[in-house]
């Protein structure tokens, strides 16, 4: 294991621990208000100060960490599963059908993810309870983030299908279903694992962009995206640098994912 990978794994371990122990670190919860101290500077009682409603920023940050770090992998799992099915199907169906599926991948890939996200998010009701908004946000990420992975899965299946071992298996009389189940699917596992790891930071960033634009998780539920939306008030930001803590947490997490996954598959680009 390289030093960069160890560093990434250690950083992720710390962040996940903070998310898991959010209730211990901030037993008051993310919505508890200290109405006597709204917009307070950092104090021993509130290490990162309080927001305009008197809510502890550290409590909101650790609970937001839990939301973002646990739901982005869930969305990545959905996207990876969809990519596996779509990529596999496009490679094994008839040539014309495969071309149609590839065209659909191309159309979805040509559109910027954020454009698709805000279009579909707007098609759904915006005034929804916080937990519903959370579900909608991460489900949309999972449902829209698969096409690039599907193309990679398709290429991997085509490569395996035309390989010498597959040719030998076919020559030995192996039926197609068994060939795919026993020989091709196991070869896809590392590809799918790499895609899963690559999609997590993409979805963390996607959720953050949606949150900054006010189309992500709604109040009072915190996520990194909704916490970053507070940075809209730019005038006071230089005099209140502790408000950038969610941005630093997000930056650390994405960086750690890149470092930890650097041995898997392609480079982050």
């Amino acid at each position, binding site marked *: 294991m390289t030093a960069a990978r160890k560093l990434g794994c250690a950083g992720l371990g710390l962040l996940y621990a903070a998310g898991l122990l959010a209730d211990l670190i901030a037993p008051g919860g993310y919505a508890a208000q200290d109405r006597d101290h709204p917009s307070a500077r950092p104090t021993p009682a509130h290490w990162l100060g309080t927001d305009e409603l008197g809510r502890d920023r550290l409590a909101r940050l650790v609970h937001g960490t839990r939301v973002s770090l646990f739901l982005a992998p869930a969305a990545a799992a959905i996207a990876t599963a969809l990519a596996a099915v779509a990529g596999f199907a496009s490679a094994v169906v008839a040539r014309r059908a495969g071309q149609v599926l590839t065209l659909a991948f191309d*159309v979805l890939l040509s559109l910027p993810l954020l454009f698709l996200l*805000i279009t579909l998010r*707007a098609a759904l009701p915006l005034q929804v309870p916080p937990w519903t908004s959370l579900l909608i946000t991460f489900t949309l990420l999972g449902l829209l983030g698969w096409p690039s992975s599907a193309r990679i899965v398709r290429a991997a299946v085509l490569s395996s299908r035309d390989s010498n071992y597959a040719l030998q298996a076919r020559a030995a009389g192996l039926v197609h279903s068994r060939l795919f189940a026993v020989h091709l699917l196991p070869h896809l596992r590392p590809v799918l694992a790499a895609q899963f790891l690559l999609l997590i930071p993409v979805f963390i960033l996607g959720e953050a962009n949606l949150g900054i634009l006010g189309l992500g998780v709604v109040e009072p539920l915190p996520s990194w995206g909704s916490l*970053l939306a507070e940075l809209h008030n730019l005038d006071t930001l230089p005099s209140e640098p502790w408000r950038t803590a969610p*941005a630093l947490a*997000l930056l650390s997490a994405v960086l750690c994912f890149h470092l930890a996954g650097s041995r898997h598959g392609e480079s982050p680009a």
Partner: protein
Amino acid sequence: MHPARQLLIAALRWASGVLVAGLLAALLLYAAPGATVDEREIDPALGERTRARLRAEAGARPDFVSYYAGFLQSALRGDLGTSRAYHLPVTQLIGERWSLTAAAVAEGLAAAWALGLAGALLSAGSRWASPPFTAFSVLLLCLPSGLLAIAFFLARLPVAGILAAAVFPKIYQYLRNLLDQAARAPHCLAARARGIGPLRLLLLHRAWPLWPEAVTLAGVTVSTAIGAAIPTEALCDVPGLGQLAWKSALARDLPLLVALTIAVAAVTLGVNSVASVAAAAGGGRRWRS
């Protein structure tokens, strides 16, 4: 394959891609929750009879196939509908704003390509240049474009710079990887064995043969830059298409949002098709030579 045939296939792929995007967009308009509800129904100034008429009009919808056919016919006439939030024709709204976004995207892409290409060449040619460029690109890759927009806005840097910062890491890392792979290619090993100088080797034998891949990447980066334009224009208050998309999403102005999506699909698919044809032609010539 003959270039004319390649062009024809690219044009057909573009047209079918836009048709698929239109189909998905029409489906979205047709099936979105609340699509059959007219917001004027909650206007207290309207009487019960008017509201009943609005409900009847909204409820009497054709089946989806007829709806999509009508949608396509209107789109081909240049009528993309009327914005629910602005009460103006969608084509007029897009026409007023596209030039701002196009200028910002063009400037951003030019800056990103200049920096990305220079960074990749410097990093490939000198081991000392690689760490700062790589660190800078990884840092930018870890930030959402919305956050980049906030940082650039605070630093009073131009909008095109945000788009450049969002696109640069992808260009740099992709080109850098390609240049590293090219260094291990047999033709480069042969060139080095013949005593060709490092600069000539880098520019002529490693970088130049990669231009078809670079052209393909150029097509992809247009899509990335347009995506980054949404938070950038929204947060920096630039009245371009990105801000229009954001405002229409907040107002659930689906006709406008869908028209924007089709327009973006047409542009990005078109750019990618041209890039693919150019890359295929260049690749063919490269291997023939």
